[in-house]
């Protein structure tokens, strides 16, 4: 508890639970402003213990409604919960309509729930570039449980694995045959499968197919993703879904995987951030025009140009 006095004032207000400061810092983080940078640096040692549950899955499978049902369930158990819901930005105008909040009817007056909508702002992979940092702010503000809803525009938003401690892949019956689920993505990221809209015909079949496939997948890690059927219209399966998530979190602790997973995530994060800087640096290099000219003239191919450039950079070091 001793690092508190050395935190910048905004970080102290954040720790004290000032929601207005939290809201502002999230905006500043999204916009890459210096105060948020300083706060994120200062609070980083205080983070890393929260349970971060990612919900991903194609458009229209009911991710938001599922989060709403989970919120209700968790609040009955007295848990404080934050939600980050990501929606896509228009590639044309840059604008977006963030509409997940509509489904969170439990959130509107409960002081132990915090909901924030984020636009993806051109970032691909189902999250915004700063979603991870926003989750850290929420953790520093005292939310030890954060639910993250991905964009869900394409097939599966694999990037959720880079921030979530437990990733839930949400599907519905008749989304496609089992071959679809064999496609890359799904099984690599799912810690828990959820077949939502289980009141629809075909739900049993979908659940069986997924369970069989989950059993086939070689669980090198020792965790076999359970398949839970849910229906948000009557609350079927919500306690079971939460239990499956908790079971995975327990598994992470008991198996020692939690640290290994955190190491993997942080390695990727640092590499990605370094890569971003490197890319900017390269794009601003004054030699760029000179390097592109022979490629444009079809004298050397792009791969050769890149290899020579890289060799020069290494020699210069």
């Amino acid at each position: 508890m001793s690092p508190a006095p050395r935190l910048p004032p905004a970080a102290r207000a954040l720790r004290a639970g000032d929601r207005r400061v939290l809201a502002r810092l999230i905006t500043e983080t999204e916009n890459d402003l210096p105060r948020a940078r300083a706060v994120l640096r200062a609070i980083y040692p205080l983070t890393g213990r929260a349970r971060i549950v990612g919900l991903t899955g194609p458009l229209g499978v009911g991710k938001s409604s599922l989060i709403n049902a989970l919120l209700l369930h968790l609040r009955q158990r007295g848990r404080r919960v934050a939600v980050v819901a990501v929606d896509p930005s228009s590639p044309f105008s840059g604008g977006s309509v963030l509409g997940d909040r509509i489904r969170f009817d439990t959130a509107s007056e409960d002081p132990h729930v915090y909901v924030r909508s984020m636009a993806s702002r051109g970032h691909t992979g189902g999250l915004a570039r700063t979603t991870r940092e926003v989750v850290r702010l929420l953790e520093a503000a005292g939310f030890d449980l954060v639910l993250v809803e991905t964009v869900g525009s394409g097939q599966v938003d694999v990037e959720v694995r880079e921030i979530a401690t437990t990733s839930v892949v949400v599907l519905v019956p008749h989304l496609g045959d089992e071959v679809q689920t064999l496609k890359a993505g799904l099984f690599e990221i799912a810690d828990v499968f959820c077949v939502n809209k289980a009141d629809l015909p075909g739900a049993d079949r979908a659940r069986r197919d997924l369970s069989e496939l989950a059993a086939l997948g070689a669980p090198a890690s020792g965790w076999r993703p359970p398949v839970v059927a849910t229906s948000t219209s009557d609350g079927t399966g919500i306690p079971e879904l939460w239990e499956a998530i908790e079971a995975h979190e327990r598994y992470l602790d008991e198996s020692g995987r939690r640290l290994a997973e955190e190491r993997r995530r942080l390695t990727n994060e640092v590499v990605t951030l370094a890569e971003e800087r490197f890319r900017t640096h390269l794009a601003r290099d004054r030699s760029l025009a000179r390097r592109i000219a022979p490629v444009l003239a079809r004298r050397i191919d792009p791969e050769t140009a890149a290899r020579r450039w890289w060799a020069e950079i290494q020699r210069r070091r």
Partner: protein
Amino acid sequence: MAPRKKQAPIRVLIAKPGLDGHDRGAKVVARALRDAGMEVIYAGLRQTPEAIVRAAMEEDVDLIGVSILSGAHMALVPRILTLLREERGGRIPVFLGGIIPDEDARRLRKLGVREIFGPGASLEEIVTSARRLAGRAS
């Protein structure tokens, strides 16, 4: 810092308090603001003033657009303005859309509503004043 130098998008909450279910206007406005590059948090139908103010604070919006077609604007809008002040969000500008009689419009403006758009307002007009209210007049 990371290579993002574009101006931060305006964040706007579009909410529809009260009991009427006519949200077409609100949706059309939400879309127009999106197409103008804004991030629109669409709060949906039948929101209480408390829920609207709560959403505005959590989402840290630059402005709030409220659509009311039920005739209950004199009950709902002042309540929203009061709650905003209590929540230290009194500086977030509020604009209103709906069928508002002149007399009511005058009173609401006096209470702090910054703009009121009737059925004849063009989307262009709404987008322009949204930018101005958010302090980003072009």
